[in-house]
């Protein structure tokens, strides 16, 4: 298996006057999980569909090691994709669905059973997909993506419908695939969903690429808060209040919206003993600030709900 890099170059899609994707250029490398982030309607799905040849770009290119998807000799063995959890006839069993794809792609007969085992669906292989939960259908979509044991994975909102154990399983699964040397490009509308998995983030909003950086860079820039453990949280809280810094009590101390140096100075000035002081990075807030910076309307749904 030789992993391929995914390259988007000036990728553009216009539907009439509406520009859904506007000149996006980015790279996803082998051995890494690259997260395409953005609020709903940012153009993530359209970008991935152009990459996979399902939507014709108005401009630019999307390639796998320089080849368009329709130029790949055995696409299913080279690229696996999960685009919609509902992409299966509800009257078919999961096994029948995968056998159809395996037959069409000339894959070995045992491929469906292998991926059903990998995705934890082996026991439900002969149940009709209409009886599946959304999370099970999402796993089935992943199974279909892995059918050809591809070197590149393209996953559109793969955590949709998964329960917390399912999300944890997916994180481990995706991480393992990247550690095996595969290229993983996945989309999400929430940074918190990918911050434990992704190596690189591409932030998209209103069809434009706002940011392309490693998660470590993003985390370093976002490091604005502190976590403090003290035997006297109320005195420290009063000092923070007086200095105009917001804080909240958490399990083992205080979470403060100020850098650790400032908190340390205030504690020293007021003679408050500290047992622990560390900087924290609120990546989600940093992500929201980034996308809100371009347009106040471009808030993710969760933020809009929190505001209202």
């Amino acid at each position: 298996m030789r992993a391929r890099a995914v390259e988007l170059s000036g990728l553009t899609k216009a539907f009439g006057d509406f520009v859904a994707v506007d000149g996006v250029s980015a790279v996803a490398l082998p051995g890494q999980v690259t997260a395409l982030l953005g609020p709903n309607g940012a153009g993530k799905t359209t970008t991935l569909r152009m990459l996979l040849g399902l939507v014709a770009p108005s401009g630019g290119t999307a390639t796998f090691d320089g080849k368009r998807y329709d130029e790949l000799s055995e696409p299913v063995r080279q690229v696996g994709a999960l685009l919609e959890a509902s992409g299966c006839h509800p009257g078919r069993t999961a096994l029948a669905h995968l056998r159809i794809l395996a037959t069409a792609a000339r894959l070995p007969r045992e491929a469906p059973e292998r991926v059903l085992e990998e995705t934890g669906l082996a026991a439900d292989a002969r149940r009709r997909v209409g009886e599946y939960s959304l999370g099970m259908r999402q796993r089935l979509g992943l199974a279909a993506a892995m059918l050809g044991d591809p070197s590149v994975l393209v996953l559109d909102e793969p955590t949709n419908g998964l329960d917390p154990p399912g999300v944890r399983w997916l994180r481990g699964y995706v991480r393992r695939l990247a550690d095996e040397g595969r290229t993983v490009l996945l989309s999400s509308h929430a940074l918190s969903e990918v911050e434990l998995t992704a190596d690189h983030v591409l932030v998209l909003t209103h069809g434009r690429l706002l940011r392309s950086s490693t998660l470590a860079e993003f985390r370093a820039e976002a490091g604005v808060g502190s976590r403090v453990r003290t035997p006297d949280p109320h005195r420290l809280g009063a000092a923070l209040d007086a200095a105009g810094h917001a804080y909240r009590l958490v399990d083992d101390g205080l979470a403060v919206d100020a850098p650790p140096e400032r908190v340390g100075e205030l504690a020293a000035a007021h003679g408050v003993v500290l047992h622990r002081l560390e900087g924290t990075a609120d990546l989600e807030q940093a992500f929201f600030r980034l996308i809100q910076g371009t347009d106040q309307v471009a808030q993710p749904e969760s933020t809009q709900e929190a505001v209202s």
Partner: protein
Amino acid sequence: MKALVLAELLKIRSTRTQVALVLATLAFVPWTAALTIPKKGAENVPVSLDDPRLLGVAIGNSFGAPIVLMLLLGGVAFTQEFRYGTVTSMYLVEPQRIRILVAKWVTLVLVGGVVATLTLVVSVPFSAALIGFRDGEVSLGVTFWEMVAAGFVVMPVFGVIGVAIGALVRNQITAVVAVLVWMLALEQLVISSYPEVGRWMPGATSFVLLQMGPSVDPDGELLSASAAGLLLAAYTAVAVALALRLTPKRDVL
């Protein structure tokens, strides 16, 4: 191509809808065949009990419901992919969409052969028995063999047209309603009310080829068999050409 056709056949076998449609249609076959077999002593009938063409005409008429079935099966073969989102995974497996389109046509040609066979398996013994029961003439003459041959041509052709309709319309409900309204209401109405227009319609060509003329066109205003055959070929070519042209270009959102 063989792999894609095998996958299409697996699709048909792995859901109940298509099998249920075929069985429901076969239930209509004896009824439509019986419509052309007159009762004893009946007068002013298109084909009399002692006419040696009677078995052939009954067989031709029995293909009336299967024609609609083939259009539906062809249409559903594509619209179902869009309805359930499976078109995405098929286009990922085979990004050359025309190959998928051709695989569906090949599959529907094969299915057309199966449907024609099943129709004959039901209609021939039933019609022969009913004609014999009414003391008519059971003859395996030229008309009979013409109808058998026509069935094996017309069924696959309507399957091919159905696939093209599905590829062009994409919305399953729209495609199914359009086929049913067109074949069961509009064409029947136009042929009976305005035969000079109706004779040029696609369904009318099948009526000619399957010699349903005596039952649907007592005044003989439909086209000749050769003209109807050419016209059906032209309709098929146009549908195929449009599907080939538009399918590779359309976005799958």
